[in-house]
């Protein structure tokens, strides 16, 4: 494949960022928005072309004669060479998962660009918003096509930086500012682990390159044999640390605390970043390095356990939130955790790593319906000017398009056939059951909770009781409705894609067999969840309040997200600030500054003391001159003798 089109996929968003960032303020809002959207539209077409070429062209570059999909490096420019082996390159890797991401990211990004034309209309800094969106799209695309782990790290950080800019877009709101700081600091902290992991890995394997690492992990790690650190092999440490980076970006416990706060950003941004793209970076990272993780079974188990705990935790918390965007945020955490669990449960001996395929499948479908839900939430917020469901209710009468599309999203995430979420979630459950019944039951429970909390929100917003609206809510303009409708259609049919043909471990084609037992269980559980939600929330009643009162402590704890933020605040403010920062600050102020001040005082005193040298009398000048010359000679002579 020619390198021009892949290069353009990266170059257009970057160019658009520079254009809008530098010249945007000179443009009208409309021009900037349309330019940004058109640029993303072009990227959409180009990346669809690239992905379809990869999947369907049958080019021997991409698919072997035996029907195995290959990893293909379109270009790989050497950028920085540490040693002959250890080279940082910037390139474009095309394989099943990156081709799939080339469909997901531009689709969602384009929808968000289009949607924002209406949603962000008239906001101050509209051009800046589009510039940041372009920067984010560029970083995310660069991340998924990275040919080596260091390139991935570079774009990983760029994603973090651009999400910081987008979350803090309303920089006059203190809450947005602190949310963006929190997101940046937490993910950056996690990335520290990522970087250390990369350094360990590259030190022992002498390569950054994904293909070298993943094609034969055994050979790449030959030199690590026997190297241990604190009871674990260095490789385990490296992989767990690399996963830490993924935990940060994908908001796994205990690094999830930034994601709910990140909802302070504009809602389309939440749809783009916190539903479909950035938060799946962690999943993508594990999938990208999967063969390496497979070589270290402990690290995969770690992924599984972290994912399972996060999934349950987030689902419980989501049941008690008032802000609909927060519900969606916790639902995202929970769904991402599904993908992680699925990866963690994938083993070659169980259906040829079904979990790997299922995880990517769920990533794909989830991106679509979660973006739909977020954009739908955006439409609601736009209509009633509040994030809280207490300000909403009975909206099905006023906003039919939003109602239907949101319902489709809820059905998809709940896992009701034939909507997209059912198919992918079913595959995940099959994969988890085949690995371990315990975790299978666990995840089934979480799936039921998912259906419950999503329909809780749905009923509370669109049915329940109607509050007094200051002005009649109505559906949004076409730039906002069209993305909703498109995404809703996709959410209906995406599950029918024979995903096993396209994205599987090692590129072999895999025929999906429905496991009707598991599917039946998951449908039943989901329906039960929906029914409970319906009983509690369809019409206004006091049952929910009674239930909450009956175990008030649990409800309060869940409402406060089990006090994770408080724990972090305690650790940072009380322990780190008092125990470490204060002594350091004292040392800095007293010892270091004191020394410097001392130097300054001495300098000043010296300057004052010698001021009379410059007497203004030329006789003295000449005298000093002569004495100086003589002293120079005498001292030199004396030293020599």
């Amino acid at each position, binding site marked *: 494949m020619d390198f021009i089109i892949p290069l353009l996929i990266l170059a257009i968003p970057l160019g658009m960022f520079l254009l809008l960032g530098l010249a945007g303020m000179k443009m009208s809002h409309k021009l900037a928005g349309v330019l940004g959207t058109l640029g993303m539209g072009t990227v959409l077409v180009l990346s669809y072309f690239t992905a379809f070429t990869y999947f369907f062209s049958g080019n021997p570059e991409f698919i072997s004669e035996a029907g195995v999909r290959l990893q293909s490096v379109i270009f790989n420019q050497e950028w920085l060479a540490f040693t002959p082996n250890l080279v940082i390159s910037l390139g474009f890797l095309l394989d099943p998962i990156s081709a799939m991401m080339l469909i997901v990211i531009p689709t969602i990004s384009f929808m968000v660009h289009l949607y924002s034309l209406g949603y962000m209309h008239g906001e101050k800094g509209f051009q800046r918003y589009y510039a940041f969106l372009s920067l984010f799209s560029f970083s995310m695309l660069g991340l998924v096509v990275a040919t080596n782990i260091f390139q991935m790290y570079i774009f990983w950080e760029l994603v973090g930086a651009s999400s910081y800019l987008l979350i803090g877009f309303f920089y006059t709101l203190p809450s947005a500012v602190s949310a963006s700081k929190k997101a940046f600091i937490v993910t950056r902290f996690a990335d520290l682990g990522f970087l250390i992991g990369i350094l360990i890995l590259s030190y022992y394997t002498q390569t950054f390159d994904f293909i070298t690492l993943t094609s034969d992990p055994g050979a790449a790690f030959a030199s690590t044999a026997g190297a241990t650190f604190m009871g674990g092999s260095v490789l385990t440490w490296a992989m767990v640390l690399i996963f830490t980076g993924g935990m940060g970006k994908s908001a796994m416990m205990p690094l999830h605390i930034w994601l709910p706060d990140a909802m302070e950003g504009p809602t389309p941004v939440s749809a783009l970043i916190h539903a479909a793209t950035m938060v799946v970076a962690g999943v993508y990272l594990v999938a990208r390095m999967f063969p390496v993780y497979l070589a270290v079974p402990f690290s995969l188990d770690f992924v599984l356990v972290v994912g399972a705990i996060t999934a349950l935790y987030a689902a419980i918390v989501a049941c008690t939130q008032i802000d609909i965007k927060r519900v969606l945020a916790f639902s995202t955490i929970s769904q991402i955790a599904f993908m992680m669990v699925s990866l963690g449960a994938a083993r070659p001996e169980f259906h040829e790593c079904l979990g790997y395929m299922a995880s990517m499948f769920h990533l794909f479908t989830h991106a679509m319906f979660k973006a739909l839900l977020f954009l739908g939430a955006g439409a609601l917020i736009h209509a009633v000017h509040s994030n809280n469901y207490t300000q909403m209710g009975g909206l099905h009468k006023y906003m039919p398009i939003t109602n239907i599309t949101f319902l489709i999203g809820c059905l998809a995430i709940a896992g009701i056939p034939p909507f997209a979420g059912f198919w992918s979630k079913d595959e995940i459950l099959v994969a988890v059951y085949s690995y371990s019944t315990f975790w299978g039951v666990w995840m089934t429970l979480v799936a039921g909770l998912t259906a419950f909390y999503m329909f809780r929100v749905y009923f509370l917003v669109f049915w329940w009781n109607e509050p007094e609206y200051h002005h009649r809510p109505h559906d949004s303009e076409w730039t906002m409705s069209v993305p909703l409708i498109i995404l809703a259609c996709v959410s209906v049919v995406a599950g029918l894609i024979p995903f096993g043909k396209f994205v599987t471990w090692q590129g072999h084609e895999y025929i999906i067999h429905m496991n009707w037992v598991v599917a039946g269980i998951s449908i039943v559980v989901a329906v039960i969840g929906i029914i409970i939600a319906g009983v509690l929330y369809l019409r206004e009643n006091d049952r929910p309040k009674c239930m909450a009162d009956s175990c008030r402590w649990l409800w309060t704890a869940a409402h406060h997200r089990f006090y994770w933020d408080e724990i972090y605040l305690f650790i940072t403010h009380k322990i780190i600030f008092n125990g470490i920062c204060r002594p350091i600050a004292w040392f800095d102020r007293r010892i270091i500054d004191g020394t410097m001040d001392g130097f300054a005082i001495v300098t000043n005193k010296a300057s004052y003391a010698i001021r009379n040298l410059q007497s203004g009398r030329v006789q003295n000048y000449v005298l000093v001159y002569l004495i100086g010359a003589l002293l*120079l000679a005498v001292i030199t002579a004396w030293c020599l003798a």
Partner: protein
Amino acid sequence: MDYSQFLAMKQEIGLLVVFLLVFLYDTFASARAAGATGWVAVGLFAIFTLFGFCPTVSEPAEAFAGMYSTNAVMATIKNILNVGTLIIMIQAITWAKQDAVAIRRGEFYEMVLLTLFGMYLMISSRHFLLFVIGLETASLPLAAMVAFDKHRYESREAAVKYILTAVFSSAIFLMGLSFVYGLTGSLYFDRIGIAVAEGGLSLMLIVAIAFVMGGIGFKLSLVPFHLWTADVYQGAPTPVTSYLSVISKGAAAMAFLIVLCQVFAAAYADVWEWMLYALIILTITIGNLFAMRQKNMKRFLAFSSISQAGYIMLGIMSCSELGTAALMYYVLVYIFSNLAAFGVIGAIENNTGCVSMEDYNGLYRTNPRLAFTMMLAMFSLAGIPPFAGFFSKFFIFTSAISQGSVAIYVLVLIALINTIISLYYYLLVVKAMYISQEQGPVATFRSSGSERFALWVCVAGILGLGIVSCFYNSLLGIAGV
């Protein structure tokens, strides 16, 4: 005598031609045409400056039985001085239009050219007789230039101080030379070099070297031969001050390098390395300590230029080709940075008469572009990246360290600490211009075209010389590294 050997002195002859043309124009031009004397001088000198870059000029040549010689290094340092002189001549045009000066403005340009001729001789001579002639040619007209504002008391006082110290310094220098002659029986550089190497060390030689260092150190204003500097810089008209501080200093630095590293090369390790070592520490430190306290901008820059001279001397410390290149580069960058500062001072002085640092309070609000230029100049003088001053300091430190002894590391460390001290007082100016809430007396004004042009050139130099690597690389090539 073979008169064709005058042709070996291409730059000297060219400069004399420029001088004569300016002199003739100034003498015979009508009263109206005399107003353009400055531009005529600038134009002619610009042509001559371009001529200096012809490849034939830098070919090695010798004349007068080896008393005069030139080569690529010497031609290059002369070119660097030419560029600086050209900027000063452009900057001086506005000043020279003032009533008190206008009647004598031709003399200013003529004396600039003449002193420059003396500096050429200092650089190119291979014989101390010629060297002294060059030195005096470069010194005595300067006294007249310092006294150019003869109606101002400070100007006259400065001239008197300058001439007295200069005469004394020449006497010491000549005494040192007579010792040298007594020891070696020759005034030719190469023969002295051989004789010193053969004769070994003696007290007489040490005294002679100390006196020679005093003589040239006077022109460089090295401590303790520097005391005249502040009074003269403050009293002299600003164009003369800038001429003294960059051109005169740059030429003396190169002459110093030649005298020490070629004539007294044999005494390097035992004698003058340690003398220079002490002089550098004294110069940088005392220059800095005095600069901290100054309230008058010209006096402040006088002490700053003393300490800068100390840094320039670091290029001599290693006595190597690398040091020569670093020294030339430092002088080049120093010319641009210091002339930017003096250009701003001159513009403000011409328009408002203010020269005190307090007058610069709030300059950013009234004259943002001048304030910005001044800030660039201060940053460059302080050696803040990415401005040229950072690179020149970096290269001169590198050249000194390449010599490799522990003592040199200590010296460079002291120089580095002094860089921090210097940062303090350079930033004082920036603070006054940008941060100070008080408003000084300088109102918004538009400086003349010639001043602005000169400042643009300086700013381009400050921004470009460091980042565009070809300048330093070509200097390295010329120095033969």
